[in-house]
């Protein structure tokens, strides 16, 4: 193994390997200031397109540093500074005062995309969605996945409440900061 921290491609290869195997449930790697933690929800049933490895929804989250920022820290640049210690879930939780397409009630919270990528409503194609409108969620409930280059980022609720509105549809490309859901806070 090289002494230098891995570059994006090496991390990518590890994620690819996890995707291709059936028997890895969790994986944690730490090289210097780069940390990778993979937690797979379930096995993916089959490859989608012939001749191409499917992007399995392996949920990836960086426990102490945001994985996207780590991936951005490609040589020869220095590692990207983590602007603020990233929370366990990288979802941006915006209180009701923040602007949104629709008016938010005072007890509503907007869930925004923590990164640009593809929004998945369910852990894998065809399986039930993580949440539906009316569902009760806790702070740790996974609301959806945003895929960034085959890295599946769980978006957690961070607040307790009920799902009030879902603003995007499955498989939709989403911008950084794009409103995804509205959670009505528990009274």
């Amino acid at each position, binding site marked *: 193994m090289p002494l230098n921290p891995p*570059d*994006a*491609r090496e991390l*990518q290869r590890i994620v690819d390997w996890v995707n291709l195997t059936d028997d890895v449930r969790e994986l944690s790697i730490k090289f210097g200031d780069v940390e990778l933690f993979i937690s797979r929800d379930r096995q993916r049933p089959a490859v989608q397109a012939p001749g191409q490895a499917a992007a399995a929804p392996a949920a990836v989250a960086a426990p102490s540093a945001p994985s*996207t*920022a780590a*991936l*951005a*820290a*490609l*040589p*020869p*640049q220095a590692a*990207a*500074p983590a*602007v603020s210690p990233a929370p366990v879930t990288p979802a941006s939780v915006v209180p009701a005062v923040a602007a949104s397409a629709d008016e938010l009630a005072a007890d509503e919270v907007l869930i925004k995309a923590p*990164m*640009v*990528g*593809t929004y998945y409503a369910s852990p894998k194609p065809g399986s039930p969605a993580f949440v539906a409108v009316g569902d009760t969620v806790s702070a740790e409930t996974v609301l959806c996945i945003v*895929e*960034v*280059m085959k*890295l599946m980022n769980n978006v957690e609720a961070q607040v307790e409440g009920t799902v009030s509105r879902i603003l995007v549809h499955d498989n939709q*490309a*989403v*911008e*950084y*900061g*794009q409103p995804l859901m509205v959670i009505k806070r528990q009274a």
Partner: protein
Amino acid sequence: MAAPLKSVLIANRGEIALRIIRACKELSIRSVLVYSEADADSLPVKLADQAICIGPPQAALSYRNASAVISAALAFKVDAIHPGYGFLSENADFAALCEEEGIVFIGPSSEVIRNMGDKIEAKKIARRAGVPTVPGSVGAIAEYSEALAVASEVGYPLLIKAAAGGGGRGMRVVQRAETLEKDLSEIMSEAEVAFGDPSVYIERYLTDIRHIEIQVISDGTTTLHLGERDCTTQRRNQKLIEESPSPVLDAELRRGLALAAVALCQEVGYRNAGTIEFVFDNIERTYYFIEMNTRIQVEHPVSEEVSGIDLIKLQLQIAGGIPLTMTQDDVVIRGHAIECRINAEDPDRGFAPGPGTISTFRQPGGFGVRMDTHIETGYTIPPFYDSMIGKLICWGQNRDEAIVRMIRALDELVIDGVITTAPFHKKILESAEFTSGDFNTAFVAEFMERG
């Protein structure tokens, strides 16, 4: 990769993002701009066919964030990425990621970026291609005897550079043979301490130089040059004013430079737009290869104005697999073009950048005047990025006309609300040295010292 591009993601901001959007529109390519939260209200965001926010203001989390850019390209299904200049434009790993993901990187291959990005490697390639490099040691030097042998070839003054150094660190000028042994041992000790590597390079120290570069464009088979740009008007290695043609070259030198640049490109199988930088020794009237920039450059409009060739459009076409249809004979340099980089900086306070809101912007116009800028009245310059807020480019039938036109355009330009370098440019342009054309890279520093 051989299909004409239908959509291009622009991984940049400011005037170059706007420049690429314009080229895309003229080629009926969908322009997809990625932007940081700080640029949400910028002109490129308004003018792109689609704009996608990819992160917070910090460049490391947005414009330099390779995974965010590629994720946007994949999620929003674009054919290609134009990196502009700066940010990810010369990042070989990013180019390699694009290649792996099947996204066209608008530039040369990742391998070429990597090789030319390594100064030692680039110098070796140049020598292989028969392109002159600054006389000096071929490899690293570890012994005084070697240094002595090289020094006798190179002459004095010479420069000792720590192999692991960079950015001006670990360098020493040796004026006389008498001090060579002492200087060598000192700089090697310093390098050992600073970088953990005592090896050094030796090369001729040039004291009266100009910076001249050749613009090339290649489809991988045909390589054309678009003449030179003279970027001698610098301040602390930052280019201030670029012009084409150079006021000091004769036809033979011009031809030699151009052929050297093309030979280098052919040696590495270069594709797309690139610039080969040379130092020109005013005393010996000869040139040496310094480095290659494997991207479009800030000052590319200077070459566009004298050649009539739209470099960004050629970049997009080549990336879409459309070969060049013109030959070198079709590239005709006409007149003279000058570019002034307008920065939101205060020359009276050491060129300190001063972000702020532009209360009034008046764009100069008329014959021979082009201003590539993303600023507008009411625009707020964010503090996160480069302080360049526009480029004023003037063309004239000859250098004199280009200069008076630039002065006229600078007089017409109004950027209220922030301090810019525009008045400083005017002073430079009106100076006897600049108008004579006879100066070197120390000119601006000397000009400022005189006050």
